[in-house]
């Protein structure tokens, strides 16, 4: 039979509140960072903060961290892989066109 971890029952409230504070801090950080002139790096900073926040939500609130189901990890990785195909190949096309 499948050997399951104790799932989320052991997740402490402390973790939830810490993630919540980090997410609120990240929101404030994005808002303030957008006001700085970082040249072409503004977009990169915004996306790095957004991805960090998304990871925090996925790992701790959606419990990917600690998930014992291997199929779940396969689904998550294939989703990201498919999204990467969509984004990278599309941008490789539009980014190298002489017109537009």
């Amino acid at each position, binding site marked *: *039979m*499948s050997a*399951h971890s104790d799932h*989320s*029952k052991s*997740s402490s*409230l402390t973790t*939830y*509140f810490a*993630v*919540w504070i980090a*997410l*609120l801090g990240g*929101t*404030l950080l*994005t*808002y303030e960072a*957008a*006001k*700085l*002139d*970082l040249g072409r790096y*503004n977009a990169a900073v*915004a*996306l790095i*903060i*957004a991805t960090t*926040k*998304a990871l925090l*939500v*996925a790992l701790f*609130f*959606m419990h990917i961290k600690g998930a014992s*189901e291997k*199929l*779940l990890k396969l*689904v*998550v990785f*294939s*989703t990201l892989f*498919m*999204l990467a195909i*969509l*984004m990278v190949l*599309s*941008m490789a096309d*539009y*980014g190298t066109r002489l017109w*537009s």
Partner: protein
Amino acid sequence: MAAHAPGHNPALLHHFATEDQQRDSASLGMWIFLATEVMFFGGLFCAYLIYRRAYFSDFAAASTSINAALGGTNTAVLICSSLTVVLAIWAAQTSRRGLMLFMLALTMLFGLAFLGIKGVEYNDKFVEHHVPGASFSFEHQPIPGHPDQYANPRHAEIFFALYFIMTGLHALHMVVGLGIFAWLFWAAWKGRFTPEYHTPLEIGGLYWHFVDIIWIYLFPLLYLIDRHQ
């Protein structure tokens, strides 16, 4: 598999061997649905990237016209709602019925607050004639950092079309989420959820968190283009 022993969890359906298997199957199904949702929104994000690259300064001018403080407040509201969702599940796991009901109600309240703030924001855009269509107008709007240059209204209209489609689709997901949580609240009220069985709460929570993640990307991409001028 033998028939269920007397006293088995009534929530365990007969085609599952164990409660863990049942919960993992439900969770996996939800994750596969979320994978299709990622591709659904992914197409829009891709369209956004292509046009933002092509018409960056027009996008910046259009983005600056949106109220970023309202968008930031909405981000905080959604983050708080995600916290109340995990607290509701924690309450279910530890048999705190009152807390679970309170957190579910709070989640819906945050969801409604989000839609209300969104409504204020949309109203501004209608008043300013920034809604794509026959009455769209974005004449003589300076490009951030270049006060002597005006944004091309046709290109700004593409930004606003993407803005309304992406935030509108997200808001539609919020409405569906509110429906799901209204049902969860009703089921929790009826005493359906126990520390052993509260899978619907976890599945509904996955959906709610996913909608939160979409907003975490929408906020900087739509509201915060070139704000430093």
